[in-house]
């Protein structure tokens, strides 16, 4: 889930298999290469 969007970039929080629940930068190559889709939930 995206937590921060600003001029520095996008941060998201997720449950990592190795590190547990953690906040990371979306712009990291690791995540960009594995990205499938983004969805805006209906509220």
């Amino acid at each position, binding site marked *: 889930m995206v937590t*921060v969007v600003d001029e520095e970039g996008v941060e998201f929080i997720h449950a990592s298999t190795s590190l547990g629940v953690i906040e990371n930068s979306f712009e990291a190559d690791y995540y960009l290469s594995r990205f499938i889709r983004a969805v*805006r939930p209906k509220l």
Partner: protein
Amino acid sequence: MQSEKTKVRPIAKARIAACRPVTNPTWQRYYGLALVLLLLASSCQRKLNQHNGRYYSARDMARMKHGQRVAGPSATKTKTKTTTAGSGGVATTTKVVIKRPLRTGNATGVLASVIDNARAYQGTPYLFGGTTRMGMDCSALLQLSFAEAGITIPRSSNEQAAWGDPVKPTELRPGDFLFFGASPARR
């Protein structure tokens, strides 16, 4: 008779006193050595419980440090280290530590509280199928964070991915769901 007895005693005492110096110097030498070592050891120790030249208990020191952490999320932190050289010269090194400020989310309303809920789970280990603080998977993190804000969302990732409208990666906003797959090489 009484006066004779009192005269004898001082002589005995004098004899004991005369015997003592024979054993005294060695004992005294070790005592002095121990004292010097103790003084050296104490002078080498960092004064852990000193703050602004005053003594504080360990509990007070912890409380003060905690107060500093809570009060000032300052962007820069300056560390000054002063070392006294043996000849009496004072060397001062100043280290400036630039701390990245915690990026605050620009989410509003319910999403802000959902993000706060999710951040409260930071550090929870990953457990496939887990839905508690003992361990949780990716979809459980979203489901619990939304549930705590009073919103029911699907439990499985597949259902969550179909629950909203697709968003372009360039138009992301806080609260959007991101879905990742296996590494490109394995696809």
